[in-house]
């Protein structure tokens, strides 16, 4: 039966990275970096999520189809977020208009 069997070592390394990431994001939140806080927080979260997807969920060793399927979910989220926010962000652009 096919299906890649990962080593336990890689699982423990990923686990350690996830814990470290959690500690880092907690500590970073305590300091006021202004808007940069959001960048740091999201970056760490994205790295953690990627580690889980690639190694715990096995996408690192899966077919390209699996990779495309997983990626498409996030791409579609970006479409929803990006285009909706483009409405809100551009509402105030035209001074003196009805909108």
């Amino acid at each position, binding site marked *: 039966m096919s299906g890649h069997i990962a080593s*336990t070592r890689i699982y423990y390394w990923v*686990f350690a990275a996830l814990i470290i990431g959690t500690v880092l994001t907690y500590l970073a939140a305590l300091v006021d970096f202004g808007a940069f806080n959001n960048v740091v927080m999201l970056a760490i979260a994205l790295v953690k999520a990627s580690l889980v997807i690639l190694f*715990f*969920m096995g996408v690192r060793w899966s077919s390209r189809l699996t990779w495309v399927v997983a990626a498409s979910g996030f791409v*579609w989220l970006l479409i929803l977020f990006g285009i909706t926010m483009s409405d*809100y962000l551009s509402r105030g652009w035209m001074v003196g208009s009805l909108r």
Partner: protein
Amino acid sequence: MPSQSHSEHFPGPIHNPPVIKGEVHKGHGPHAHHPKLQHHFDDMDQQLEASTLGMWVFLVTEIMFFGGLFMAYLMYRWANPTAFQEASAHLDKFWGAVNTIVLIVSSLTMAMAVRSAQTSAKPKTQVMWLVATMFFGTVFLGVKVVEYTDKFTHNLVPGPNFVWTGQYPAGAEIFYSLYFCMTGLHALHMIIGLGMMTVITVMARRGTFDGSYYTPVEVSGLYWHFVDIVWIFLFPLLYLIGAHYGAGH
């Protein structure tokens, strides 16, 4: 007796179908009659691949399902940044962090559980990893119960009983609406996950899973990891944005 062609315009049925050039009679390989092979599949490999792909497609729907809530969060946070910071500061980030760690551990034990089935480990070992996963999942839910109770007693549940003494009551109420919707939906998914794990654990105890058949463990694992990933985003977005609120802001 079949009728002749339906209309004079058509010459009738094809006598020499051009497409089918041969036939495949499956069922003579070593795994052809694995007791867990569903008969519309050709072999166990196809069954595993199809089931895994199916779970991934389902997880995409879950990404979009939670995604609607994240969209609402994104917009309302952009519109009420300070209100959200103020509201978030009232969440206990210690317990949020504990829960994050708890779920990460449960993801590790889940990965080990899938691996133990893949490597045909003894049922006892498989069950041990699965029970560990369920244990940490339950701990997570226990912490959430504590947190929710705290919110109830402090009138932080949106609705007629919502009381806010800070500067931004309207924004805080929206924040807490999102908090309860997002963590509530997440907790519901955890509960469903625990249900799945119970079923899988019972099956594992009976020795159902080994290297030739571990599909249910694999797809349950995928689901479990997804629920962990949602929390990986929920934790900082809900608990950590107000951590330095008031400090010179």
